[in-house]
């Protein structure tokens, strides 16, 4: 697009927006993990959160079901 005051470049597609969203979420997860490991409040590493979830019977089943689903979804489908 060329014109007065406009920006030249590729159009923003849904694919690009989705890709940026996933990258942003991944970056946020990494940031929370790093802050948790550095001891910054209120952040905790994901391992601590999972251990807390595993302390209850329901939490155990939810975590195990999520693990099984991830394996099936990404490695088998």
């Amino acid at each position, binding site marked *: 697009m060329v014109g007065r005051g406009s920006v030249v470049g590729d159009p923003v*597609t*849904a*694919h690009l927006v*989705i*890709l940026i*969203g*996933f990258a942003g*979420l991944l970056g*946020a*997860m990494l940031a*929370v993990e790093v802050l*948790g490991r550095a001891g910054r409040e*209120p*952040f*905790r590493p*994901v*391992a*601590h*959160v*999972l*251990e*807390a979830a*595993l*302390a209850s019977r329901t939490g*155990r089943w939810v*975590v*195990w079901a999520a*693990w*099984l689903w*991830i*394996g*099936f*979804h*990404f*490695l*088998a*489908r």
Partner: protein
Amino acid sequence: MRSPREQATVRRDPARSQRDAHTWGVSAEQVAARGARLGRWDALILVYAALAALCRPLTAPAVVVVLLPGAALLALAAWRHAPPRRAVCPRRGVVPWAVLALLFGGWELPAALWGNDSAHPTLSLLLDPVLETYPGRLLGWLAWLGVGRWLVTR
């Protein structure tokens, strides 16, 4: 009575064995035995991942090789009857991860509902080019089985 492998583990790093024993409230021998077991798990996971990664996704063998360790680790986790642990994470420490998980679901769902095509890909579709290669699948398998092993030991 320590086995030769346990003696070797304690001899190799006695300070770590004692520190772990103090942390977990178990004897140094138990810590050493646990270390030896983890070594065997590592080898087993490596071999299994190398073989399982030979199976391409969307095939019957791929389903079987996922279900085998899945069922085995689930059974092991159910059989272990680990004593209930005190939650080590305050509720407000859970909030950031819960928010991120919800955001991830909220981001994945529209793409799935819009057809999960190249214009609106889900994460699994975006990872397809990586998982189509053997090294990519091997990494995926190692990560998945490694997390499974970690969950069993909790």
